[in-house]
C-alpha cells in the first residue's frame, strides 16, 4: 500500500545524514559533557561545535543557545523564565494563533496575576500591527509572536514586529519551530530577543530543541540542578541528539525549499477545482507562507472523516475540525482567522516534506477529490 506522509508539520522522518551522525556520536561522544576526563571533553568539543553550527543559522554574534527538550520547553522557558526573573512587569502580549504551548503558558501566568493581551489576526493570519503598538504598555514584559504558523502556514514579518516591540521598550520572543531553516531569521536585524527552535520538524531527532537568549536578558531556569547549560538549564546534555540537531539544520537548503514549494503549489492548484473549498492562511505567492503548508477547507465534508478516508488510502494528513477533538471545539487558529464554526468542519492540513514526489502529490490530489466526492455524496445537502 502507498504510504504518503503529508504531516511534516507534526513531525518529520529523521534524515539519513542525521541518523548517521547520531550513530557515530553514540559511539564516539557518549561522555558527559560536564566531565573533566578526555571522554567528557570530547563530547564537550562536539557539543560546542554543534552549538556554533546551529547558531550561525541565525546570527554572526555569539548569543547564548540553550539546548532544551524541544519547542514546548523552549517556549515555556522563554515566557515563564523571563516572568520569574523580571517580576516588576506583569503584562504579556501574544496572539490568538499561537501554538498551545505558548497559549497555555500565558494562561498559566494569567492565573498568577499577569495580564495577557491576545492580538487579533486578519483573515490571512497576519498580526494586527496597529493593535500591537497600541497594546504595549510600560509594564509589558514580553511580546511573543509565532513566526511560521503551524496550522495555516502564515509567516509573520519578524522585523516589523520586532521593531515595534523594541521602539516601545519591550522584549520580543518568537516561536520559530515551523520556520527554522525554511525562512531566514536574523537575531540582530529582526530584533529578536528570544528565539525558540527545535529539531524534529527539520528531519532531526525528537526531544531536542533550543532557545536563543540575547546578551543581557535574564531568565530564571525551569529546571534547577547541575546547571549544565550556562546555569540556565540542568540535566545531562543530550550530546548525540544535539549533534543530530546540528546536522539537521543542513538538511533543508534552497533546493529543498524550492522542491517543497513546488509540491505544495501542485497540491493546492490541483485541488483548486474542488467546489466549495478554499485555502486558509497567506496566499501561495505572497512569499509569507511556509513552503510546506497547505491548509484547505472543504464544505459539505467533515475533517475527521476526510482524514480517516485518506489514511485508509495511505495518506497521512491532519485536521483542525472540532469533530476530531475531545472538546468539540474547532482549532483556535481557524477561528482567529474568521472562519465560522461550520466552515472549520472540513478543514485539512497537508504539510509536504523533502521526500515527497510529484507522483505522490498527484495521487493525493486524486484521492482527496475522490474522498470529498464520496463524502459529499453522503451529505444530505446539495451534493
Amino acid at each position: 500500500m502507498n504510504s504518503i506522509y503529508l504531516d511534516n508539520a507534526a513531525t518529520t522522518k529523521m534524515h539519513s545524514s542525521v541518523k548517521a551522525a547520531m550513530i557515530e556520536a553514540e559511539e564516539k561522544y557518549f561522555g558527559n559533557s560536564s566531565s573533566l576526563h578526555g571522554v567528557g571533553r570530547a563530547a564537550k568539543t562536539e557539543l560546542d561545535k554543534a552549538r556554533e553550527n546551529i547558531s550561525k543559522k541565525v546570527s554572526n554574534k555569539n548569543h547564548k543557545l540553550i539546548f532544551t527538550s524541544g519547542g514546548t520547553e523552549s517556549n515555556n522557558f522563554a515566557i515563564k523564565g523571563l516572568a520569574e526573573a523580571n517580576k516588576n512587569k506583569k503584562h504579556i502580549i501574544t496572539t490568538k494563533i499561537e501554538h498551545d504551548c505558548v497559549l497555555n503558558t500565558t494562561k498559566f501566568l494569567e492565573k498568577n496575576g499577569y495580564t495577557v493581551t491576545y492580538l487579533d489576526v486578519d483573515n490571512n493570519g497576519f498580526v494586527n500591527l496597529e493593535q500591537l503598538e497600541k497594546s504595549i504598555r510600560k509594564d509589558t514584559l514580553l511580546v511573543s509572536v509565532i513566526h511560521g504558523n503551524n496550522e495555516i502556514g502564515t509567516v509573520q514579518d519578524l522585523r516589523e514586529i520586532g521593531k515595534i516591540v523594541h521602539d516601545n521598550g519591550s522584549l520580543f520572543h518568537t516561536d520559530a519551530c515551523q520556520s527554522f531553516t525554511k525562512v531566514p531569521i536574523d537575531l540582530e536585524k529582526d530584533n529578536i530577543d528570544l528565539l525558540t527552535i527545535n529539531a524534529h520538524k527539520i528531519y532531526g531527532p525528537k526531544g531536542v530543541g533550543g532557545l536563543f537568549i540575547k546578551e543581557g536578558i535574564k531568565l530564571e531556569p525551569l529546571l534547577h540542578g547541575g546547571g549544565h547549560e550556562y546555569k540556565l538549564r540542568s540535566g545531562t546534555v543530550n550530546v548525540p541528539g544535539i549533534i543530530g540537531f546540528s546536522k539537521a539544520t543542513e538538511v533543508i537548503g534552497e533546493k529543498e525549499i524550492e522542491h517543497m514549494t513546488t509540491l505544495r503549489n501542485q497540491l493546492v492548484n490541483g485541488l483548486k477545482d474542488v467546489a466549495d473549498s478554499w485555502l486558509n492562511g497567506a496566499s501561495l505567492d505572497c512569499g509569507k507562507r511556509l513552503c510546506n503548508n497547505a491548509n484547505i477547507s472543504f464544505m459539505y465534508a467533515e475533517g475527521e472523516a476526510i482524514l480517516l478516508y485518506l489514511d485508509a488510502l495511505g495518506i497521512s494528513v491532519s485536521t483542525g475540525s472540532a469533530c476530531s477533538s475531545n472538546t468539540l471545539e474547532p482549532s483556535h487558529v481557524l477561528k482567529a482567522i474568521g472562519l465560522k464554526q461550520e466552515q472549520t468542519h472540513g478543514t485539512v492540513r497537508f504539510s509536504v516534506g523533502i521526500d515527497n514526489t510529484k507522483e505522490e502529490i498527484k495521487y493525493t490530489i486524486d484521492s482527496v477529490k475522490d474522498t470529498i466526492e464520496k463524502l459529499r455524496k453522503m451529505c444530505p445537502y446539495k451534493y
Partner: protein
Amino acid sequence: MVEKMEEYSKKVMENFMAPKNLGEIEKADGVGKVGNPKCLLGDTLLHTNLKLKKIKDIKKNDLIISHGGKYTAISETFNRNVNEQIIVLKNRLGEIKLTKEHLVYAIKVPKKDKFLRTKNKKTLIPAWYHSEQLEKGDLILYSILSEIKDAEFLEINSIKKKLDYKSKTIPSKIKLDSDFLRLAGYFLSEGYYSDKTTKTHLAFCFNLNEDKLVEDVVSISEKIFGIVPTIKKNTTKHSQVVYINNVFVVRLFKELFESGAKHKDVPDIFMTLPLDKQKHLIYGIWRGDGFFNTKIPRGGYSTISKELIHKLKILLLRQGIIPSVYFEYEKTDKKGQKHQECYRIHVGGKESTEKLAKILKIDLKNNKPESINSWIDNGYLYTPITSKILENYSGKVYNLEINTAHSYNTDAFTVHNCGDIMWIYIKVSKNDKGEEIIEDIKFKTLGCAAAIATSSMVTELAKGKTLTQAFNITRGDVANSLDGLPPIKMHCSNLAADGLQEAINDYYKKQGREILKIIHNDNCSCCNKEKNCNKKGGNI
C-alpha cells in the same frame, strides 16, 4: 492542533469505511431528518424583521437577526420530536429553552478568583458551547442589530373615501425627522386612536402636570400635519388628552403601529434608522410612559406589548445602553387595583444610565463607583447566565437554517444552527403475518466517522424489522452494536436512532395515523463515563 479523542472500535471503522445502505429512496414512505440543527422549543421568540415571532411560526424567507447583527434570510426550517431533558438558560434579556447539544455563543468563565473581576473576564475569547456545558455565571453573547438604513420620508395614503368632503388633506410625504419620531414615541407610550366614521381621532393621554409634553405634541402636529389639536382636561382623573382629529393621520398611525395596546409595535423602518434619529424615538417612548430616578439613578419602562418591549430593548442596545427585561404576571395591588400582565425594562449601571439620561435630556451627576457584569463590545452584548435549570420536555423542537450566517438571535441569546445532519429514508411493506416491516432503508449523513457509522448501523439493525421493533431501537443499541463509541460522540453524533424514529413517524403521519411518542434515551450502557448513566443494557 486539537486535543485528540479516543480511538474508534473496529466495527465503527468498518461501518464508516464501507457504510451500508447509503443513499436515498425515491418516493420513500417515510423520511426522518435529524441533526443538531433542530433544538429550540417552539415558543422561543426570535426577532424577525416583521415582528417578534415564535420559532414554530417562522417560515422560509423570513428575515432574522443573525450573528454579526445583520438581517439575514432563512433558507430552511426544521422540527423534530423529543422526549428528553432540556435546558432552560436565563439572562437579563430573557430565557431560552433548548436541547443539551444546541450550540450557544458564549464564554466559559474559569472558576478562579481572578475571573471575579470583569476586567479579566473581558480577556476571554468567546466560542460555541453545547448548552449543557454552560453554567450560571458563564457569559452569553447577544448579537446587537447593527444595520443602519436611513429613511427620509413616509408616504401617506391620502385617498379620500367617497362622500368625504370634510377631511383636511395633509402632506402626502412626511419627513421622518426627529419631531415625527418623538411623536411616534409619545404615541407608542401614551397614544390610541379611534377610526369610527363619527369619531376619527388620534389621542395622546397625559397627566395634568405634563404640560410640556402636551405643548410638544401640539407644536409637532401643527408643524407636520398643519393641524391644530384639541385638548381636553379632566381634573378628577388628573389627566389631559390631546386629540388630532384627522382621518389620514389616524390611518398613518394605524398602519405604522398596528392596533390595540397589546400589539403596539415599532415599525421595521424605524429599527434600522441612524442612531441619532432613534434617540428621539427613545425620548418620546420614555418621556411618555417611562420613569427616571436621578437619585439612585435608574430608569424603568413598562408596557403590555411584548413586541414593544423587545424592540425597545434593541433600540437601547444600539445606543450602548444595557437593559434588563422582566415579565410580570397579572396581579392585584394592595389598593385592589388590577394590573394586566406586563413587560418591564430596567436600566441601571453608571454608563447605561448616563447614556439614557443624555437621550432624555436629564441632568445626571453620578459619581458612584460600581461593579459591572455586562458589557458591549464589537456588536455583542456580553452578559452572564443568571440561572440554568433542567426540565423534562416532550414535544417538538425547532431550528432554522440560514443561508450565509448559520446562527441567529433568540430574544436573549445568539444560538447556532449547525452540526451533524442525518436523513433516514424508509420503504414500508407487509410481511406474511400482515405486519408492517421496513422493506428498505437508506441514509444520508454529513458528519464524522461516528455519525456515518451510526447511520449505517441503524439501517442494518432496522432492515426487515417490523415498524414497532424498529421504533424501539435506541441510541444505546446502535452504540452497542458498534462495540461502543467515544464518550464525546454519544451526544453529538449518535442521532441515527432518532432519525429512524422520525422516519417511522413521518410514515404514520402520511398515513394519517397517530404518531408514536419518541422513547429514546441517550444515557446508554456503552458510555458509562456519562454522568447520568445509571442503566445497563441499552434497551430502556
